[in-house]
């Protein structure tokens, strides 16, 4: 693996903001009906995603974007469940872990090809989500949050204790690179295209869902379950479907994660991951599919930048998150555009005010 070097702040870091800004070029109100269709703007984003790693041909940037892409897949699935269906899950990291461990076990113990393990990861995460979701999705609000949190903790205990299968606290090493028909994704650049390719596929799937009957049913459930069921929407079923779908996304992400990091250990899937994922969804903007991607890029980048301040990194991180939540209460992906325009307008007016023209 390429060693990530901890250098001082580089000017180049500022350029990481550029893809973020591109993502934030979303029209003022992404909730409008016709805005949910695919637009020419999406082609522009696609171009930016394809070209970004070629312009900044820095392995560290590539690696960062691979991680951001994986977290974005995770956040995308959670955003369908949280942002659209209005439920809450604090156990999403567990499904990520299930995906990662499925791939790890299948490829190291049984020498399965990674492509099969990739699909198996999603299926196993989805199946477990189905059996977990059936009972606990009857809960609402805080109770659902606690139940999913409990599930996450139970998952960690199981992973730590079943030493033979999962390697216990140490985890599983030597997971092979992802490969498709003999083509091995062994550099960060190749992995970048792999993860973002998967992300784009899942994004298109989610966007189709959101603009169709399913998306409307999800929003209806979030707004009023009584009204939704009185109009023929099967509320428990649609909640379960989207929970399972989110888990399948997490399974894909986990599989990619274990192939990229070539290690799966329990610490990577603890509450320490759940909280950033939820933050990505909230910071990015609820009820908006571009949001979680913007949030994932922002938080991954932020954690990386701050990691050079050692022990001060967490307090700074916390303060930045609080500031972001204060100034972008409905998410950066939703309102950054509007805010920037507003700020520019404010500065222009202030200048005129100072000159006494107002």
């Amino acid at each position, binding site marked *: 693996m390429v060693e990530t070097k901890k250098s001082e702040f580089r000017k180049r870091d500022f350029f990481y903001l550029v893809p973020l800004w591109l993502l934030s070029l979303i029209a003022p109100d992404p909730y409008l*009906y016709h805005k949910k269709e695919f637009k020419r703007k999406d082609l522009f984003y696609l171009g930016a995603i394809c070209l970004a790693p070629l312009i900044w041909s820095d392995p560290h940037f590539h690696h960062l974007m691979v991680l951001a892409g994986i977290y974005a897949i995770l956040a995308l699935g959670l955003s369908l469940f949280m942002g659209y269906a209005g439920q809450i899950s604090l156990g999403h990291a567990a499904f990520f872990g299930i995906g990662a461990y499925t791939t790890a076990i299948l490829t190291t113990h049984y020498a399965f090809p990674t492509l099969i393990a990739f699909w198996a990861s999603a299926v196993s995460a989805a199946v477990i989500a189905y059996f977990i979701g059936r009972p606990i999705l009857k809960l609402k609000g805080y109770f659902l949050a606690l139940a999913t949190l409990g599930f996450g903790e139970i998952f960690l205990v199981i992973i730590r204790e079943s030493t033979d299968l999962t390697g216990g606290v140490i985890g599983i090493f030597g997971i092979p690179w992802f490969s498709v028909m003999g083509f091995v994704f062994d550099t960060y650049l190749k992995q970048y295209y792999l993860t973002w390719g998967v992300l784009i596929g899942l994004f298109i799937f989610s966007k*189709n869902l959101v603009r169709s009957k399913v998306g409307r049913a999800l929003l*209806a459930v979030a707004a009023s379950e009584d009204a939704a069921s*009185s*109009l023929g929407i099967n509320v428990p079923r649609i909640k379960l479907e989207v929970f399972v779908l989110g888990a399948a996304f997490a399974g894909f992400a986990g599989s990619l994660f274990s192939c990229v990091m070539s290690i799966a250990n329990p610490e990577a899937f603890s509450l320490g991951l759940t909280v950033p994922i939820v933050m990505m969804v909230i910071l990015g903007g609820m009820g908006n599919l571009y949001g979680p991607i913007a949030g994932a890029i922002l938080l991954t980048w932020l954690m990386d930048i701050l990691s050079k301040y050692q022990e001060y990194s967490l307090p700074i991180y916390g303060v930045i998150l609080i500031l972001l939540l204060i100034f972008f209460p409905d998410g950066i992906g939703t309102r950054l555009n509007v805010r920037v325009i507003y700020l520019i307008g404010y500065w222009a007016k202030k200048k005129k005010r100072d000159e006494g023209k107002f």
Partner: protein
Amino acid sequence: MSLLSIEEITKEYDGIRALDRISLKVEKGSIKGLIGPNGAGKSTLFHLISGVEKPDSGKIYFKEREISSMQSHERSTLGIGRTFQTLQIWGNMTVVENIMAGMNRRLKGGLFSCGFWLPGIRRSEKEALKEAKKILNSLDLLGKWESMASQLPYGKQKLLELGRALAMKPELLLLDEPASGLTFNEMQQLSERILQIRQEGVTAFIVEHHMGIVMEIADEIAVLHNGELIAEGTPEAVRRNPQVIEAYLKGKRASA
């Protein structure tokens, strides 16, 4: 056979009888009104019919099928649509999406066919949009089709809720206080719309707190008081019923 028949239905909340052995029938193609003072059990009865709550005893038949143990969404799939007393509009969607979400039970497609945007879904979405706009047009809401539903004024939201219930093409439409909070003009528009719905073959069952609009459009009226059915008949007969006058006057005196 009547479209909806309720037999000996009882519902208690913490020992208080909200409904006491109520039996009612709603004939196909008619407009039935249900009136009564505050706390008479009108909304409870609607909740029991639409499945938001379950009765303690008694049976409900819809199209000669017993529905008392069915889930709420199963009942609406059979063709019972409703609006709510406290407005339950989906404010997180646009006006047109509210209507299209109301069509949910008629649109085909599951998670995967929607996610892959198969040609069938594409077609049905297009048709749904066209039909939703037609419904909005008939409610004079087409001008606002793309604003968020939460941004509409109250009266328009009420109309939108009615439109949403109509979009599912119900056979029986339960309207829970459709006129409350409306201006005089909006009320006029509403009663015209309800009469028009009847001509399209929809049976309406209306709970209304104040008499005016119900007396005007209903074919038959039932009066609830303290969980008991005290009168049933044509508007004229109900208006002259001494028990009804008594119940309403008492209510007036208590509130004055």
